[in-house]
């Protein structure tokens, strides 16, 4: 670990590099993005190996969730960069002759990205794309909980990117603590709400703006679906989102399902069938499911299930192997709502099904809990859809699918309330790492005498008429044909 002095010297060097304008030009930014592109193509095998080592992910899962998604995002940024960088003319309401107004995006300067362990490449590089596209210099602090991925990033990024502008700092909580005490022009943090509070509190000391990508319990509302095709697809999507994306260790994974009591047994049967078909007989061997990241989290999940009332509600799965850090897909039916399982974000392959009398009750259920990062609703019912959007609050709402919103470059990805603040992805990444500077250019040719003191009733009257766009009134006043009146 570097000494505090080392770190500060490094950061000052980066600020100097930034101040000298090295990162402002489009060609530098493009070169960085292209560098990332090449990295993703050339190092795919090593990235897969690191993900398998740290999380037991299958290469297809790695590609689908991280590498492929990043390639898509880099290409999108490359294609859009010119547009993003250009000044936006601000509409002036009237013919303000000889005046122009525009909004110019400029980099913030030295930014810090702290990423999480579950999608170690995705959550590090997706923000990095935005920070570089916006012309900043960046320090990246990957999570030490995924150590192979962290050290791979530390190794390869300097080879593909400008090492004076992008630095990887590895380490644990002590290093993060040290980092957040520094003065940054922006911090983008992905992680838990508890640490998010600490990051924002530290940022407050320097008035550093922050984007916090936190978590929550993302509910999936499953309405009665009229045909078996839709039911099958819905179940596949629910299971896929829960079990096949880092084994449920994802901020936007479905945390629990809400369903009407009368459909719960149908649902359960469908789930059992499809778990078998999708994940196979031995998901650990086939790596159709990732493993739990470490003993801490394994213990945490194990403890959730040790609550006797929770244990009693297990209807499928439940077996755990501490040696391989593997938990098989587990479904619970109506575990107690006050249990830790139903109070904390699960972040693991345990899927509670909560039954309700009417599916519309799901709205109150969701609203009585902290605002989640995502709400999923599987329904044909248009009025339920409208109510979901209008009456609940979450980072996002997705109908008839789950997690796919992460892929959309045109949608802001971020939370609200306990699930976060700010957003990114696509242009939102560029914007989150930019300052939108207002620029007004005036001419010397136009001015008017009564803009200036000394003040008198005459000038006041002129202004009164002006504001009402009463041109005739102005004319009359100037011509002396209208008496200026008191307020």
């Amino acid at each position, binding site marked *: 670990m570097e000494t505090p002095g080392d770190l500060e010297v490094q950061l000052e060097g980066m600020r100097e590099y930034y101040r000298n304008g090295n990162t402002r030009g489009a060609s530098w930014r493009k070169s960085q993005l292209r560098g990332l592109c090449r990295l993703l193509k050339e190092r795919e095998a090593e990235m897969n190996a690191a993900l398998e080592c740290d999380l037991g992910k299958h*290469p*297809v899962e790695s*590609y*689908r969730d991280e590498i*492929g*998604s990043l390639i898509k995002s880099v*290409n999108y940024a490359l294609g859009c960069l010119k547009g993003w960088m250009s000044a936006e003319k*601000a509409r002036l309401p*009237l013919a*303000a002759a000889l005046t122009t*107004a525009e*909004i110019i995006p*400029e980099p913030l300067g030295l930014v810090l990205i702290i990423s999480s362990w579950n999608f170690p490449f995705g959550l590090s590089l997706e923000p990095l794309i935005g920070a570089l596209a916006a012309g900043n210099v960046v320090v990246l602090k990957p999570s030490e909980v995924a150590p192979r991925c962290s050290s791979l990033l530390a190794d390869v990024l300097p080879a593909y990117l400008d090492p004076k502008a992008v630095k990887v700092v590895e380490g644990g909580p002590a290093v993060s603590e040290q980092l957040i005490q520094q003065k940054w022009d922006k911090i983008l943090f992905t992680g838990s709400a508890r640490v998010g*509070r600490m990051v*924002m509190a530290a940022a407050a*000391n320097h*008035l550093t*703006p922050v984007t*916090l990508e936190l978590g929550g319990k993302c509910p999936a509302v499953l309405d009665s679906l009229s045909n078996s095709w839709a039911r099958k*697809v819905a179940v*596949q*999507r629910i*299971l*896929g989102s829960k079990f*096949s994306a880092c084994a449920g260790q994802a901020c936007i994974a479905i945390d629990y399902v809400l369903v009407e009591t009368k459909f719960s047994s149908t649902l359960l049967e469908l789930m059992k069938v499809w778990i078998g078909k*999708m994940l*196979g007989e031995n998901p650990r061997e*086939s790596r*159709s499911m990732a493993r739990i990241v470490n003993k801490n989290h394994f213990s945490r999940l194990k403890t959730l299930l040790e609550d006797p009332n929770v244990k009693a509600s297990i209807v499928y799965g439940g077996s755990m192997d501490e040696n391989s850090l593997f938990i098989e897909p587990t479904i619970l039916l109506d575990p107690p709502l006050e249990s830790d399982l139903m109070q904390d974000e699960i972040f693991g392959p345990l899927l509670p099904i909560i039954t309700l009398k009417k599916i519309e009750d799901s709205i109150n259920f969701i609203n009585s809990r902290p605002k989640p990062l995502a709400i999923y609703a599987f329904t044909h019912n248009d009025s339920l859809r409208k109510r979901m959007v209008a009456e609940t*609050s979450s980072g*996002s709402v997705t*109908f008839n*699918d789950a997690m796919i*919103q992460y892929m*959309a470059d*045109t*949608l802001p990805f971020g939370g609200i309330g*306990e699930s976060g603040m700010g957003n990114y992805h696509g242009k939102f990444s560029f914007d989150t790492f930019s300052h*939108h*500077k*207002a*620029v*007004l250019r*005036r001419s*010397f040719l*136009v*001015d*008017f005498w009564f*803009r*200036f*003191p*000394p*003040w008198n009733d005459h*000038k006041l009257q002129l*202004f009164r008429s002006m*504001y009402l766009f009463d041109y005739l009134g102005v*004319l009359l006043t*100037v*011509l002396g044909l209208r008496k200026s009146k008191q*307020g």
Partner: protein
Amino acid sequence: MAGEDKKQQPFDSKAASSLVAELRGAFASGTTRSYQWRESQLRGLLRMTDEHEQDITAALRSDLGKPELESVLYEAAMLRNSCKFALKELQRWMMPEKVKTSLTTFPSSAEIVSEPLGVVLIISAWNYPYCMRHFSFFIFPVSFASFTILFVVPTFFLHYLSVLSLDPVVGAIAAGNAVVLKPSEIAPATSALLAKLLGEYMDSSSIRVVEGAVPETTALLEQKWDKIFYTGNGRVGQIVMAAAAKHLTPVVLELGGKSPVVVDSGINLQIACRRIIVGKWGNNNGQACIASDYIITTKDLAPKLVDVLKNELETFYGKNPLESKDLSRIVNSNHFTRLTKLLDEDKVSKKVVYGGERDPTKLQIAPTILLDVPRDSLIMNEEIFGPLLPILTVDKLEESFDIIKSGAKPLAAYIFTNDKKLKEHFVNNVSAGGLVVNDTTVHLAVHTLPFGGVGESGIGAYHGKFSFDAFSHKKAVVYRSFMGDAAIRYPPYTNGKLRLMKALLGGSILGILRALFGRS
């Protein structure tokens, strides 16, 4: 009943907590979300401003000694225009924004829905207690003396003097939130007036005013808000943000800084000086976050600049500016003392080239110009926020950029020049909340420009639609169908699926076809 019965009991944590609970209840009932409610409240604000303009002037005169024209007309008119603009645009702002979706999420449709954040806290500053913004009108006088037709081209520019309190309230209401407003205690008459008027004109189930000072503000900051909007100084801004961090509350901080004015030669110095003067002393006598703080010009130009400034100052405020009715006074004795300390520092007191008079009984300080103050003086190391204007001189004007960049990023920066290259260099290299070329402060009035700081001058922005956005959550909504499912997304994972996925994420139709037919 609105406002708080502060005479009866102190507004403490308990009171703050039950206030928030009450407003949460009101928000949860959905009242503030409808277009009708938002529109009615904005109209209420308009009526309030129209019907009580006199009271507003009186309060501002009592608190700040603001000249009638400077404060009432501008402040009231600015708020009026803010409301009118919001009313005009509200329906459009409230509509979801459809966005394009690509192959990776095909088939789907998506939109971004603006929803209110909930219950928001707005803490305002004292210098512009009423509103914020201004517009001005351009007139091309053909000849004043000959009474010929004037071409009046109203613009949106205006001296801003507005109600720093109420402009964010306009945004918060337009966005459908419940609002608690804490006006500044340093302008007590205006604060009391706001409490009374908002109580009468607004829906007090969802819009409240809490008056008070540090204890009341502290009690408010302990609560969980869905957004806090603070206007004031950086020190308190840090406290606000730290309090917000406990609840993961997002913030907008409109702070300050030292807004520099770079003055080049080869320009119409008289016009430039008028604009500098009116942006400095014509704005609460320099007590404004975007007033020009200091000037940088060349050693060659400095004497002439000082002369022209002196002339114009005398034209505006007469030979005895302390007697002028057109200058606001210093808000209170604390600030008066602070400013005289800046003026009387040894290394600076001899640099006064104009003004310097002060009247402690009237809390008045005359417009004062200082030439060539040392960079390490007190006056050059804090935001002046008063009627003192130091001028720094350099050999070449390009050096001014280094001076500006060596300090914290200000809320605004200004340049007067006709040199195109210098203009562009300034615009592209000076970082500040906002920039104006060949004028000062007027960008405040442009509805379509975001008004906010960067770095130490602030976080976030507002005005016009930016206010609406500042108080909204942009919620992504995706509609997918059950058709067109890509089984390739799910396990069991195979190489075939991998190939197809690569092709899909790469977006190439040919690639997709090849993958489908097992060729890639």
